């Protein structure tokens, strides 16, 4: 993909087809400094030798059962209806996409014969078409062959609004046509530099046409195979009890050599994260547990002399505090936080910068996230090519105070700073979640020292993240001054991640607060950079544009990044799972094995 093109250019430098100076000049032309260009070269050089994940087993099966513990069990097994990652993970045991993301955020072919590239003719220079080739001879679990018709059908199925598929996003604005039995062509409406969204990753799993064709559109819920998956994956379906258990057995016809290693698979649901960690790390009843949202201290204690350990996967998930640029306390035409207002105090850049200085990321990491977090100044934290080196953060109450004093915010009689009768009093909201409430407390304490009064508010997650138009406490309505939560990065491309803050996506009453730009920040330079990146086919220029977007957000203090969060899993000491921060936990399940 993008990475590969950058690499081919880097490869050109290596092989002498392009001179190093030309490469650096080309990067300089898009605003990247020479050291950064050199760094890109270095990154490219190091990762050049693409190492496929090591997989020592030399025969299929024989590994016994694999027992997985998901503390929220899958509730349905159709990847196109998978509301949460738990459902995607459950479906992924049986269904497969054309390719998945590996640990470095590179594409790893699953059902595809090869990854499309300009070199092999799979990608066009204008970034408008992609040609995927299926691996020949792949069969569904019921013995029928997988063909290009299945791929075309998946696109029709997901993009039909009547199906109400949650996977409709990756399949919109494109058409899929069959070239021959094993080849399809995707044609995008607009140039799409990030072309690996449809048919890739969790929402790219492919369901069989012969079993779902009758249940497209309005009848999608009635398909009997929604609960009895027939896929192409390493395990065949045996049993499913929503929220409790998914069971599968080895697929002896699996299309990859020597895989899978395990004879059967079981995914048990229910309970809570701490006891799941205990069942894997301490008693060894299970081999692997997902999403260990447990304090690091507890995990460290369990790991002492235990039967398992925790594993970390680096992706781009970011926990951050967003700042409201509009006034949440003034109602205009029945709408609070309206675009017609300006925040009385936070519209002053000095106040926003002071807030950023008051977030003690080191303490938050030490006291709460531990090994599962990294302090960062960036909103965009991966893949490496897109990470800005121009930003910095620090925690300093003195500097915050100095900044506020300079801007004219003087302490009043009650110790709270004010200017022109406007006091620095903020409502700080987040969802109910242990680590978040602790972070709130740490931030509040620092703010108090600097003369800022912070009122903490926590909202139940199912309300905070709901799209209920009637509810005032949702994150998208943002009827508070600052708010904190996590936005996951579901793929190693920043496109969707950054587009959110484009001014056309502002959350307003008019669009029922469906707009994703909830801080209601408007910046023309940012809009221009996002628009340019959306169609920019030169990977280096595109990376530079996203770095610029990130830097603009940093300069304007639109968000205060709190923690770059890593995915935390628990695994038995002998299990060798293939994990990636850019994919769901089960996305590379075929490569899992046990040692010793």
């Amino acid at each position, binding site marked *: 993909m993008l990475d590969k093109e950058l690499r081919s250019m880097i490869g050109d430098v290596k092989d002498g087809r392009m001179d190093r100076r030309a490469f650096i000049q080309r990067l300089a032309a898009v605003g990247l400094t020479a050291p950064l260009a050199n760094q890109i070269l270095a990154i490219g050089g190091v990762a050049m030798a693409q190492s496929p994940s090591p997989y020592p087993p030399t025969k299929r099966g024989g590994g016994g059962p694999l027992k997985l513990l998901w503390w929220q069990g899958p509730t349905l097994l159709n990847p196109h209806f998978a509301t949460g990652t738990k459902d995607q993970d459950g479906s992924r045991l049986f269904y497969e996409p054309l390719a998945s993301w590996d640990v470095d955020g590179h594409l790893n072919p699953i059902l595809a014969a090869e990854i499309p590239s300009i070199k092999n003719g799979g990608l066009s220079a204008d970034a408008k078409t992609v040609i995927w080739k299926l691996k020949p001879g792949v069969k569904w679990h019921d013995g029928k062959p997988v063909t290009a018709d299945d791929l075309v059908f998946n696109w029709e199925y997901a993009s039909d609004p009547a199906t109400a598929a949650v996977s409709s996003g990756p399949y919109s604005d494109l058409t899929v046509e069959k070239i021959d039995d094993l080849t399809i062509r995707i044609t995008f409406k607009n140039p799409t530099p990030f072309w690996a969204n449809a048919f890739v990753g969790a929402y790219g799993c492919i369901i069989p046409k012969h079993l779902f064709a009758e249940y497209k559109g309005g009848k999608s819920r009635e398909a009997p195979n929604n609960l009895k998956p027939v896929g192409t994956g390493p395990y065949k379906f045996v049993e499913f009890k929503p929220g409790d258990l998914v069971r599968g057995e080895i697929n002896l016809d699996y299309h990859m050599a020597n895989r899978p290693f395990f004879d059967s698979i079981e995914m048990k649901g229910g309970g809570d994260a701490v006891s799941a960690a205990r069942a894997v790390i301490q008693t060894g009843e299970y081999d692997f547990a997902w999403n260990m949202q447990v304090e690091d201290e507890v995990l460290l204690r369990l790991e002492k002399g235990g039967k398992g350990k925790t594993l970390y996967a680096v992706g781009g998930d970011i926990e951050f505090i967003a700042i409201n640029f509009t006034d949440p306390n003034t109602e205009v035409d029945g709408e609070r936080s309206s675009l017609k207002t300006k925040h009385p105090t936070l519209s002053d850049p000095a106040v926003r910068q002071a807030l950023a200085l008051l977030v003690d990321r080191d303490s938050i990491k030490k006291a709460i996230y531990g090994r599962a977090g990294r302090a960062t100044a960036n909103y965009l934290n991966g893949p490496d090519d897109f990470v800005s080196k121009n930003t910095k953060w620090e925690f300093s109450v003195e500097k915050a105070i100095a900044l506020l004093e300079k801007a004219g915010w003087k302490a009043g009689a009650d110790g709270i700073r004010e200017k022109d009768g406007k006091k620095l009093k903020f409502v700080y909201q987040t969802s109910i979640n242990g680590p978040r409430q602790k972070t709130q407390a740490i931030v509040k304490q620092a703010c108090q020292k600097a003369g800022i009064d912070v009122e903490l508010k926590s909202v139940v997650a199912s309300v905070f993240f709901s799209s209920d138009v009637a509810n005032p406490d949702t*994150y998208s309505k943002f009827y508070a001054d600052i708010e904190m939560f996590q936005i996951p990065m579901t793929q190693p491309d920043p496109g969707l991640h950054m587009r959110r803050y484009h001014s056309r996506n502002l959350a307003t009453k008019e669009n029922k607060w469906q707009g994703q730009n909830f801080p209601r920040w408007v910046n023309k330079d940012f809009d221009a950079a996002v628009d340019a990146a959306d169609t920019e086919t030169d990977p280096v220029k595109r990376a530079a544009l996203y770095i610029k977007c990130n830097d603009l957000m940093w300069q304007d203090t639109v968000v205060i990044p709190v923690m770059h969060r890593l995915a935390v899993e628990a695994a038995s000491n002998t299990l060798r799972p293939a994990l990636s921060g850019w994919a769901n936990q089960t996305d590379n399940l075929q490569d899992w094995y046990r040692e010793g």
Partner: protein
Amino acid sequence: MSQYVLRRLMIAIPSLLGISLVLFVVLALAPGDPFSELATNPNVPPEVQQALRARFGLDDPIYLRYLHWLNAMLHGDWGFSFVSRMNVDTLILQRLPATLYVIGSAQILALLIAIPVGVYAATKPYSLFDQIANTLAFVGFSLPTFFTGILFILIFSVTLDWLPFVYTTDIKATGIHYVLEMIRQAIMPVAVLGLFQAASMTRFVRSAMLDVIRLDYVTTARAKGLGQANVIVKHVMRNAMIPVVTLIALQMPAVFGGAIVTEQIFRIPGIGSLLISSILSNDTPVVMAVTFVFACLVVLFNLIADVLYGWLDPRISLR
């Protein structure tokens, strides 16, 4: 008798309707929606969440949604879960066996402990046995199940490594091994629940027995020269059991309703864990069905208790 039962059933209809209306309105007014997980996923456009809400009728006015639900229910259609898109009745039937097995065993264990201990303690009030039984009973119902559950796990699973603490519904064994494994994994949850129930029930049986044991007819029976066992079992217990039967009958719906906390701790796929996960994900049809079934069972078992009175004490006549 049959007329009485019929009349009670007829009275139950409006009360059940009222219950369903209250449940539905409370659930509909509760904030949140089942698709909140989609909100922060950048890969899912917000229109998808909106379309799902519209498709599942979440944007309709409450009275319309209630009438739809009621109409479907009258036709035997329990609706489908928003979360798993599966029929609610299948979902509940899937969860019922585990609940019946674990909670049922716990109730039986509680009765097996409470009745003999309560009766024996009442025959010798303030003796050493009575004092010990009382103390243990107080300790038992003061300790919440989430505490004893975790304590048991720490002792029997983590430290001693005797019992598994994750309940599985697919034990890979047949014949006697299957039965043994089923018993092994149920020991902890059954003990936790059973002992908790037994504690309060022991106190109840004891006081019910004490009320009766001092009555004149018991003295008469003793004066006739009947043996102690005969007096206690045939004369005292039969009368003392009337309030106990009410208590047990009212607890029966709980056997079907599951035990939310204990099921969560031991990962028992029962009705209780279904209910709590449905509540957390705002899956209205499932919550509605479970709570409504629960309401029906309470009404039904109340009726059964009343009928049982007549059998235990012929002086009570049912009209």
